[in-house]
């Protein structure tokens, strides 16, 4: 057992290191899909520049086939590139959803001509893409979308509302799943399109979150016209196309680096409990140990996944446990760290609060990470069904026409 690169991996890492050294800047980090409502144009433009450089060198989509502008490389090469790039402060946060979810869906379902038109500009950062799936009435049950598309000659007219759309405000194109037939069962009445986000009738409004930030949008559609040629898959086949996108989602969405056992250890050294450093307290030590085994457990689970990739094998199902563990850990650890501070735990003024209020900020945003990209509950269903082979829950909506299903407000 070892963590070493193979000869080929080491060679690739060297090549990447050299390229990054010559091309990447170690300057200030800019951009970020979760960072701003009004994206500063210069941040986006710097991100575009960097993306173009990467694409030119073949590193923007290492695993894609060469015909689509990729490197035709392996998954482990992609990981190696990411590891090395992470050492630099390059702009990120604009193209992940497009290149991670939207374009792979295009590559699987669009025509040759369409891919020739759209893949390269996305890869080079010239065009940004977003994903329009979730709706106010369709979250975990995303096949329950109500936004409708009605045929009008060679076009479709879209009306309805999407929600939680990351990056809609700076996107040029989007992929969307809509209901084209409400008289058949839920999964059977869907169709899938790509569309121009600058189309007439699209209105984008940021959603302010309880944490104070605004990382997502509501997107309203009023008589938005989309040509039939922009349909992906057959009419009524939208769910099958959407699954292509969702399969890629777990690769695109993760939990950010957060305050972990090491920050908690530091906090426990700085604050006192019963007149001695909290780190001396056995309950505190027990909690630190619990989160240590979770953090290290995930770290080494990742090593197991990388080992499979390195051998050219498909990673085992263990890679599915990540967010089930990390999202609640963010919240629980932050909550405990605040508890250590007593009454002062409520202060989130970073000038005053312990460790610049990292725990307070984390506690606020963690509530969202337990939901985004699959709730704790949905992820457990996925493990139970796909890994352990347990049956699906009873689906009362399976054989019922969509427009006859009961609904809440």
């Amino acid at each position, binding site marked *: 057992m070892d963590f070493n690169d193979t000869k080929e991996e080491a060679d690739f890492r060297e090549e990447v290191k050299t390229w990054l050294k010559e091309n990447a800047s170690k300057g200030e980090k800019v951009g970020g899909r979760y960072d701003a409502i009004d994206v500063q144009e210069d941040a986006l433009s710097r991100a575009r520049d960097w993306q173009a450089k990467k694409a030119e060198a073949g590193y923007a989509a290492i695993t894609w086939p060469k015909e689509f502008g990729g490197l035709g490389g392996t998954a482990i090469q992609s990981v190696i590139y990411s590891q090395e790039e992470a050492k630099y402060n390059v702009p990120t946060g604009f193209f992940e959803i497009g290149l991670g979810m939207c374009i792979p869906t295009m590559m699987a379902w669009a025509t040759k001509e369409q891919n020739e038109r759209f893949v390269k500009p996305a890869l080079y950062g010239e065009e940004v893409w977003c994903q329009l799936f979730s709706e106010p009435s369709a979250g975990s049950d995303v096949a329950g979308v109500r936004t409708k598309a009605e045929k009008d000659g060679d076009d479709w007219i879209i009306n309805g509302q999407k929600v939680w759309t990351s990056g809609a405000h700076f996107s040029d194109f989007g992929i969307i799943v809509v209901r084209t037939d409400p008289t058949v069962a839920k999964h059977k009445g869907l169709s899938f399109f790509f569309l121009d986000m600058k189309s007439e009738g699209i209105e984008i409004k940021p959603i302010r979150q309880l944490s104070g930030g605004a990382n997502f949008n509501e997107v309203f559609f009023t008589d938005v016209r989309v040509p039939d040629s922009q349909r992906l898959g057959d009419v009524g086949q939208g769910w099958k196309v959407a699954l292509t996108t969702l399969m890629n989602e777990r690769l695109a969405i993760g939990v950010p680096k957060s305050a972990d056992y090491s920050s908690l250890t530091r906090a426990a*050294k700085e604050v006192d409990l019963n007149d001695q450093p909290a780190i001396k307290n056995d309950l505190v030590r027990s909690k630190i140990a619990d989160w240590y085994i979770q953090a290290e457990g995930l770290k080494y689970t990742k090593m*197991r996944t990388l080992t499979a990739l390195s051998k050219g094998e498909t990673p085992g199902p263990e890679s599915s446990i990540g967010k089930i563990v990390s999202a609640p850990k963010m919240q629980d650890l932050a909550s405990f760290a605040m508890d250590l501070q007593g009454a002062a735990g409520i202060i989130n003024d970073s000038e005053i609060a312990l460790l610049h209020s990292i725990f307070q900020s984390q506690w606020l945003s963690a509530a969202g990470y337990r939901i985004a990209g699959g709730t704790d509950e949905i992820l*457990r269903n996925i493990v139970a069904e796909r890994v*352990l082979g347990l049956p699906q829950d009873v689906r009362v909506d399976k054989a019922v026409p969509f427009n006859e299903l009961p609904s809440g407000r």
Partner: protein
Amino acid sequence: MNFDFSEDQKMLKEQVSKFLSDNCSLDVVRDILETDKTYSEEVWRGLVDLGLTGTAIPEEYGGLGLGALELCVVAEELGRAAAPVPFSSSVYLGTEAIVKYGTDSQKEKWLPKLAVGELISTFALPETNSEPTENNIKTTFSNGKINGRKIPVADGSCADIAIVVVKNIDNDRIALAIVDLSSENVKRNQISTLDPSRDHAEIIFENSEAELMDVSDEGWGAIENILNSAAVLMAFEQIGGAEASLNMAKDYALDRYAFGRQIGSYQAIKHKLADMYVKIELARSNSYYGAMMLNDGGADLKIAAAASRVAATDAYNFAAQESIQTHGGIGFTWEADTQFFYRRSQVLGLALGSSITWKNKLVNQLEEKNIS
């Protein structure tokens, strides 16, 4: 990146798994649990014939001279079968102690016999209801004799020799002594524990013949060292048991119908089993690192061993108890097999010291490494 067992090690795992599924069904475990037998001699003999008792004993002493990684895969399969044999006492602890701290003559005398399973060894550490520490060991060594009482000693009635943790009166330091348990002045009483499928005894030493081992100036550090190695191996045994519990619960959840459908289709059950899976994978990943450190003699062994143990104990305790819960009333009967894992989870989880103790060791290491 090669964070996995080798093909040869996986083949060994398969081989042990096959042997145990052919020869160590849960009926064998039940037989030991329900009778006065201290262990399954047939299963033990089979493991010996496969050469497993000599896995990590150097070839010059009649062993296979393999490393820790081979023992890890064997341990996992023994755990999965809840094998009623003194393997952990004799191999992870007794044999390892002699390999690490035996004098040359002690190695020559004992290791060849341990390798071929002619003798069974054990490790005698706890004495009271309190966790053993450097300061509360009361069993003494002086002039070739030891005095004191050890309880509980795993496999203490069936073992032939014991590595006893003593206080050496001559220098007032912790030391290890080898005692032939069949010698005079050694009294052994089998004791009742939560898991009668594994033998446990009280051993009383009254001027019993003993021979000091060579811990040089390590003192208590030698005990910690032995426990750290055993913790990694035990963690694999615990993971095997936890997976067996999960599989048993899963099979039952697919078979059992309530309110007109399989109970495995209810989220209350699905989420419980998913939680078992998550804990098992966290334990496995931590223990892979533990195995790597144990095999390489890496600097991180102390913290990796503690993390392996804490995670594996948590996973096994949870899986074994929630397996019974998933089974409902039938899981609580004497007739059901769930009990073997429920009992064994506590015995393995406490054998090398409690979770509280190991969590403390883990955080000691964090403090030592000044992580923050």
